[in-house]
C-alpha cells in the first residue's frame, strides 16, 4: 500500500450537473475527468470510473477492450469490492478515449528485464516505462496487462467513491465518519441504527474533500475478488444483444466495404468502377489511393459491387513469394550481427570447446493471421468538421491520435465509441479499420457509414505474426546441464506497429518482440546466449496473441526437449533440475507432472502409439507449464489431453482464468496444427477459413487447468496460455512417433485426425 499511496492522490470535488465530480489522478499532474461533460441529469460522476444515480444504480466505467478475456467483469469487481455494492447489479460502460485511462502496466511489461528479475534496476526501469505510458496516455488493451494495471487503480477508485459517500453521510448526520460503515450500497450508522442509500447521498457528496489516502480492504475480507464471478456480459452474449462493431446501427446509415491493394501498402494505379456504379443500391465508389470503397444501402450490395470494380494494383515493396521472404530472413541470419538479449557465461566458447559433441537444430515459424471471428469493421460519421468513430478496438486513444494526424483535427474533435470486440488477439490494437471508415465517411455527406471487410479482405490485410528462423546449438556437461546458444531472425512486431501509429515512440533498449520467449525463461544455465536479428521488410507485422512468445517458445522448448533426449534425460525432470532457482516454475512443472501421470506407461489400445510432451513458458508475468498427450491413429495425430498449471501470482477470478488458459491453448494448438500465411505475387494466398482454419469441436482435447498463485507478483491471463502449447504438442508427437518436427505448422510433416 505504501507505494500506491505515495503515487496516488485524490483531490477535491466539484459539483456538476446537479451531482458530484471528484478527480482521481495518478502522479501529480491531473488529467481531466472525461465524464463530467456529459453526465445525465440526476447522475453523479464520482470519479472517472464510477457514476451513481439518484436511484442508487451504479455504473462502472471500463477503460479496456472486452475481447473475450472477461475484463469487464473483473474490472467491475475491483470497483464493486471497495465501493461495497452488489456486483450483479452494476452496469458497465466502455470508457471514451481519454488520457486518464492510460495503461501503465502494458508499457512496464515492455521493459527490457525478464519477469523474474526484481532487481532495483529492473523495477526502476519498469517505473520509467510507466511514466512513458503516462506521457503517451496510451489507452490500450494488450500485453495481458489490464488487470495488473487496474488492480490498484480500480480498487482505489471504488474506495475513493465510498469515502466521499461516507463523508456526505457524516455531514448529514453530524456523525464522525469513522463511526460509519457501508453495507451493500448504503451508508449505515450502527450506533444509531440509521442508514442512507448511495443514491440519497450522491448529491450531498458535492464539495466533499476526498481523503488523500484511502485504505483498501484486506484480501482476507474480499467478497468478490479471488472468487469466480458470473460474467456480466454473458446474458447479452447468449441472447444476441451484445453490440459488436458490426452491430452499430444509426439513423440514415449507409453500408460499405473496402478493397485495398492485396500487395499491402502499394498504390492502386487505375480503377474502372463503371459496372459497380450501375448496381442498384450502390451510392458511390470511392478511390482511396491504395484501394477503393463501395458505398451502398446494404453490406451485401457493397460486397457484390466491389467484385465488379476492376482495379490495377502496383507492385509490392517486399519480396513477392514465401520463398523469397524466408530467403531474406535466412540471409539476415547468415549475415549475423543483431543484439545479445541474454549472454550469461560464454556459450560460444563452451560449445566450441566440446567440438563435435554439439546438438544443433534449425526451426522455422510461418507468418500468421489473427483471423478474429468478427472481420474488421468500423462505423464513422462527420458532422461540422468533427469525427465520430464506432468500433470494437483495443486502443481508442490511438484512433484519436491517428485521426487527428490524418485529418488535421484537434484531438477534441474526434470521438470514439468502443463496442464489444468479436475477437482481438492484437489485431484490433491497430487503427487501420477505424481510419478507413473515417475516410469513407468523408465522402458520404454527413451520413454515417459502416465499413465491413469481407473475410478475404481481413485475412489478406492483416498485420501478421512475423515468420521467423531460429538456429540453436548446445552442448551438455557431465551433470546434464546444457550450454545453449540461440539466434533468431524475424521482422519486429513493435517496430512495424509503432511505425504505423503516429505519435508513438519505440520503447528504449533492445527489441524484445524479436527474442521474447528465448531470453527471458527461468533456466539456470551457466552459458546461455540469445541473439536477436531484426529483418527489415515492408510486410506489415504486429501483435499476435503472445507476440514474440507465440513462436520463440516453440524454438526454445522444442530445443530443450531435443537436448534432454540427446543427453539421455527425461525432458520434464531436466526442466525441474534446471529451474531450481525459480520455485514458481518448479511448482508449475511439478503440477503438470502430477496431473498428467508423467512417467507412467501409456496404453496404446486402438491406436498405433501414444506420447506425452511437456513445455514451459514464463510470459506476461505468468508462469505456465503444459503437458500434451497425443495418439498416433490411422487417421493421423489426435490430440487427446492437455494439462496446464499456471501461476498468476494473484488469481482474481479462477474460473475466468481457467477459460483464458483453455482459450490460449486452443489458439496455440490451432496455429501449430495447420495455420500458415503464404505469399505469391506479393499477395497473401489464404483468404478464408477453407485455407486458414482453426481447431474445431471434433479435434478439441480434454483440457485440465490448475490455477496457482504463489509467484508473488501478478501476471496476465489473455496470452500466457498460448506459448507452451505449440512446443508441448511437437514434443508429444516426438514422444509418440519418434518424429521431430522443427517447422510450423506441424501439418507440413504430419496429418492430424
Amino acid at each position, binding site marked *: 500500500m505504501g507505494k500506491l499511496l505515495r503515487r496516488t492522490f485524490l483531490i477535491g470535488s466539484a459539483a456538476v450537473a446537479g451531482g458530484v465530480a471528484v478527480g482521481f489522478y495518478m502522479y501529480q499532474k491531473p488529467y481531466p475527468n472525461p465524464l463530467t461533460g456529459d453526465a445525465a441529469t440526476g447522475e453523479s460522476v464520482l470519479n472517472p470510473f464510477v457514476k451513481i444515480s439518484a436511484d442508487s444504480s451504479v455504473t462502472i466505467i471500463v477503460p479496456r477492450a472486452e475481447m473475450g478475456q472477461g475484463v469487464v467483469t473483473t474490472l467491475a469487481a475491483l470497483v464493486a469490492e471497495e465501493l461495497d455494492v452488489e456486483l450483479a447489479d452494476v452496469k458497465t460502460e466502455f470508457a471514451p478515449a481519454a488520457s486518464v485511462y492510460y495503461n501503465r502496466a502494458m508499457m512496464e511489461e515492455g521493459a527490457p528485464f525478464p519477469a523474474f528479475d526484481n532487481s532495483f534496476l529492473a523495477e526502476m526501469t519498469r517505473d520509467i516505462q510507466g511514466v512513458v505510458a503516462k506521457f503517451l496516455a496510451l489507452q490500450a488493451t494488450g500485453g495481458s496487462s489490464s488487470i495488473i494495471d487496474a488492480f490498484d487503480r480500480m480498487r482505489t477508485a471504488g474506495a475513493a467513491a465510498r469515502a466521499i459517500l461516507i463523508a456526505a453521510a457524516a455531514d448529514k448526520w453530524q456523525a464522525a465518519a469513522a463511526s460509519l460503515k457501508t453495507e451493500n450500497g448504503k451508508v449505515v450508522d450502527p450506533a444509531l441504527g440509521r442508514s442512507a442509500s448511495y443514491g440519497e447521498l450522491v448529491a450531498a457528496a458535492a464539495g466533499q474533500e476526498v481523503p488523500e489516502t484511502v485504505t483498501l480492504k484486506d484480501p482476507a475480507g474480499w467478497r468478490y475478488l479471488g472468487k469466480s464471478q458470473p460474467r456480466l456480459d454473458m446474458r447479452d*452474449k*447468449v*441472447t444476441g444483444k451484445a453490440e*459488436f462493431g*458490426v452491430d452499430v446501427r444509426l439513423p440514415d446509415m449507409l453500408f460499405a466495404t473496402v478493397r485495398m491493394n492485396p500487395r499491402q501498402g502499394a498504390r492502386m494505379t487505375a480503377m474502372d468502377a463503371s459496372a459497380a456504379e450501375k448496381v442498384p443500391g450502390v451510392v458511390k465508389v470511392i478511390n482511396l489511393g491504395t484501394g477503393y470503397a463501395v458505398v451502398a444501402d*446494404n453490406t451485401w450490395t457493397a460486397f457484390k459491387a466491389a467484385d465488379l470494380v476492376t482495379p490495377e494494383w502496383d507492385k509490392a515493396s517486399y519480396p513477392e513469394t514465401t520463398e523469397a521472404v524466408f530467403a531474406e530472413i535466412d540471409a539476415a541470419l547468415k549475415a549475423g550481427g543483431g543484439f545479445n538479449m541474454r549472454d550469461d557465461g560464454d556459450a560460444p566458447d563452451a560449445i566450441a570447446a566440446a567440438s563435435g559433441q554439439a546438438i544443433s537444430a534449425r526451426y522455422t515459424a510461418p507468418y500468421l493471421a489473427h483471423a478474429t471471428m*468478427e472481420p474488421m469493421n468500423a462505423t464513422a460519421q462527420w458532422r461540422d468538421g468533427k469525427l465520430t468513430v464506432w468500433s470494437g478496438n483495443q486502443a481508442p486513444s490511438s484512433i484519436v491520435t491517428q485521426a487527428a494526424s490524418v485529418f488535421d483535427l484537434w484531438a477534441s474533435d474526434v470521438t470514439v465509441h468502443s463496442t464489444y470486440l468479436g475477437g482481438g488477439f492484437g489485431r484490433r490494437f491497430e487503427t487501420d479499420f477505424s481510419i478507413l471508415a473515417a475516410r469513407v465517411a468523408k465522402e458520404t455527406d454527413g451520413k454515417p457509414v459502416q465499413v465491413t471487410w469481407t473475410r478475404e479482405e481481413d485475412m489478406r490485410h492483416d498485420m501478421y505474426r512475423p515468420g521467423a528462423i531460429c538456429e540453436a546449438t548446445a552442448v551438455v556437461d557431465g551433470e546434464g546441464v546444457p550450454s545453449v546458444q540461440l539466434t533468431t531472425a524475424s521482422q519486429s512486431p513493435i517496430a512495424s506497429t509503432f511505425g504505423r501509429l503516429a505519435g508513438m515512440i519505440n520503447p528504449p533498449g533492445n527489441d524484445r518482440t524479436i527474442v521474447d520467449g528465448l531470453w527471458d525463461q527461468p533456466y539456470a544455465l551457466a552459458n546461455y546466449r540469445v541473439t536477436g536479428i531484426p529483418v527489415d521488410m515492408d510486410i506489415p507485422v504486429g501483435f499476435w496473441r503472445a507476440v514474440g512468445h507465440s513462436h520463440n517458445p516453440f524454438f526454445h522448448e522444442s530445443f530443450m526437449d531435443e537436448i534432454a533426449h540427446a543427453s539421455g534425460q527425461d525432458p520434464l525432470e531436466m526442466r525441474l533440475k534446471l529451474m531450481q532457482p525459480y520455485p514458481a516454475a518448479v511448482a508449475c512443472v511439478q503440477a503438470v507432472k502430477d496431473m498428467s501421470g508423467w512417467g507412467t506407461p501409456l496404453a496404446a489400445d486402438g491406436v498405433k502409439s501414444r506420447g506425452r510432451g511437456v513445455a514451459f513458458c514464463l510470459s506476461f508475468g505468468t508462469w505456465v507449464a503444459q503437458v500434451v498427450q497425443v495418439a498416433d491413429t490411422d487417421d493421423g495425430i489426435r490430440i487427446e489431453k492437455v494439462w496446464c498449471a499456471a501461476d498468476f501470482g494473484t488469481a482474481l477470478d479462477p474460473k475466468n482464468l481457467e477459460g483464458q488458459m483453455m482459450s490460449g491453448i*486452443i489458439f496455440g494448438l490451432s496455429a501449430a496444427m495447420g495455420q500458415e500465411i503464404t505469399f505469391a505475387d506479393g499477395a497473401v494466398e489464404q483468404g478464408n477459413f477453407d485455407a486458414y482454419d482453426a481447431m474445431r469441436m471434433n479435434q*478439441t482435447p480434454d483440457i485440465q487447468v490448475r490455477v496457482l498463485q504463489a509467484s508473488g507478483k501478478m501476471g496476465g491471463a489473455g496470452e500466457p496460455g498460448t506459448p507452451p502449447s505449440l512446443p508441448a504438442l511437437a514434443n508429444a508427437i516426438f514422444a509418440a512417433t519418434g518424429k521431430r518436427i522443427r517447422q510450423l505448422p506441424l501439418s507440413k510433416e504430419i496429418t492430424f485426425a
Partner: protein
Amino acid sequence: MDIKINGKTVAIEADPEMPLLWALRDIAGLTGTKFGCGIAMCGACTVLIDGEPTRSCSIALEDVSGEVTTVEALQGDNGALHAVQEAWIEQQVAQCGYCQSGQIMSAVALLASNPSPTDADIDDAMSGNLCRCGTYPRIRAAIHMAARKLAGA
C-alpha cells in the same frame, strides 16, 4: 418478398439473390446473427429454417421457403431464456461472444433432434461452428447440461 421470421411475416424489399444473413442484419434489423466468413465455413450466421440449422450467409432470400428462427426468438414471451441459453450462462461459455449466436442455434437444433447427444454426436453437430476463443470444452459441457435441463422439464 415475404419471409416468416421469428413468428412474424416480414416484407423484405431486396434482391432475391441477397443471402438471408444480410436481409436479417441490414434490412430486418436483427443483428444477433453474425457475419463471419460468407462461405458457410464458420457457422457464425447459423439460423434455423423450419428447425434445420442453416448457414444464412449461403442461402439466397429466394430459396428461403420455411420459417426462419434467429437467436432473438429463443427467449420466451415472458423473457425466460431457452434451456440452451441457461446452460451457456451456467457454464460461462462465451468469451468474445461473436460466434455464440451461431453455436447456440446449432446446439438448439441438435437437442431438438437428439435429446441426449453423445460426445460424438456433439462433434458431428458442432464442428461446423468455429470459435477462435476456444470455448469448445465449455460448449460441450453446456450442451450436456442443456440436455439434462430439457429432459427434466
